[in-house]
């Protein structure tokens, strides 16, 4: 048996390397799928919550929209106002006891993370939509684009670019907070660390490994997101085609700063 701290770290890695690796994979999978689904859910919620009806719309349409918006408001309040660990247990065990449905752990994990993320994303995206200058929408309407076309072609591309840092935040939070899903026995990284720790009672070493893996994940993901942001900004330069003297001359102008 090893006698030093790093001896034990090495020993646990050797014994449970594949366990940690599988846990890491599960954590990443839950975080990625949960963030993407949560984003799409949030997008839908934010769009519905930002609809302004044509004043000619009928009373029925108006009432329907009001009801839908109220329900979405409640959804956001409930899922932002309760801890995810509680949501996970209520949904997982609730489904089992009340409806007699036994959800597969993975399904439950992604379900919980998605609707939890969706509630936060809805508010982030709504903020992004509001932050876009009203003139953009007015210009789109003035050439005849509908609300939906304006959203898809003009407002959302700018809004999503602006909220990329917040979306990245949510992703990083999901990598870390998916650890609470160990309460419903999802075999993510923290759960696997717990298993590895229990065998030899080496809690410090096992959780140290877990901590380092989490840090590596979040560090890498943050860098990747920065890269994506820069890609979204497009090239800093553009080419001016032709000049007043020579129509074949091209030159490139670089953005200042």
């Amino acid at each position, binding site marked *: 048996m090893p006698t030093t701290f790093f001896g034990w770290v090495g020993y646990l890695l050797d014994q449970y390397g594949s366990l940690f690796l599988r846990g890491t994979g599960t954590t990443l999978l839950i975080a990625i799928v949960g963030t993407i689904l949560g984003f799409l859910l949030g997008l839908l919620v934010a769009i519905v919550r930002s609809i302004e009806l044509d*004043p000619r719309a009928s009373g029925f349409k108006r009432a329907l929209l009001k009801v839908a918006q109220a329900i979405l408001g409640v959804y956001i309040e409930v899922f932002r106002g309760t801890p995810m660990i509680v949501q996970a247990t209520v949904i997982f065990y609730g489904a089992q006891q009340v409806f007699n449905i036994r959800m597969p752990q993975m399904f439950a994990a992604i379900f919980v993370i998605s609707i939890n993320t969706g509630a936060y994303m809805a508010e982030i995206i709504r903020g992004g939509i509001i932050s876009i200058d009203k*003139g*953009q929408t007015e210009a789109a309407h*003035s*050439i*005849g*684009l509908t609300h939906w076309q304006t959203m898809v072609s003009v407002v959302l591309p700018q809004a999503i670019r602006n909220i990329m840092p917040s979306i990245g935040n949510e992703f990083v939070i999901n990598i870390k907070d998916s650890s609470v899903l160990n309460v419903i026995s999802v075999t993510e990284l923290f759960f696997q660390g717990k298993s590895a720790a229990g065998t030899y009672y080496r809690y410090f070493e096992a959780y140290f490994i877990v901590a380092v893996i989490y840090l590596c994940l979040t560090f890498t993901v943050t860098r990747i997101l920065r890269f994506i942001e820069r890609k979204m900004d497009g090239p800093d330069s553009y080419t001016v085609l032709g000049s007043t003297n020579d129509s074949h001359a091209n030159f490139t102008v670089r953005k200042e700063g």
Partner: protein
Amino acid sequence: MEHVIEVNHLRKSFGSHEVLKDVHFTADKGEVTCIIGASGSGKSTLLRCINLLEIPDGGEVLFHGENIQSGKFSLPQYHARVGMVFQQFNLFNNLTVLKNCMLGQMKVLGRSAQESEQNAMRFLEKVGMAQYIHAKPKQLSGGQKQRVAIARALAMDPEVLLFDEPTSALDPEMVGEVLSVMQDLARTGLTMLVVTHEMGFAREVAHDVVFMDDGVITERGAPEQVLLHPQTPRLKEFLAKVL
């Protein structure tokens, strides 16, 4: 002669402030009408009501005799035929110059990408911006942006263009380039409604000058008549300040 745009009894309030009080107004085909008046007199609001960016509280706006607020009237089609140029340009920041001029053609008029591009290029050349088709709005000067905005509006082949103080947000040295584009347009027989503080432009280009004061149109006529022989004390006062 049939009026392209006719405004009857138009009223609009923001809260308790009545901005438009019973405005009557017509614009005929191929005419350039300049709307002048002090800030807060309701000029921009009138233009925005015509384009339904503001919903009027009362009265009606007729386009070729048809009420634009009636249920069966297609607003996207109306917007395609009545374009607008804004004080703050409002180019789509996420799109290049070329894409700015293509978006409406493809989405609203259902034109192909190729046809939209050709048409966009035609108008970008007209406003002298064909060299900058790959630039993003934030890379352009104010005058360049406004010229692109004019090309974007023209690319929809509109019957009427509304200009809402198109040169007010520009540095002085860029005002000329935009005005000269507008002057060229006026000669093509496009119907134009121009809210402006450029009295020189109004005098040279407009067929009709309209003076708005406190939510109503108080004087209207040929530029020489309105600008050189004002009837009301308010217009005299206004002209004394701006000329």
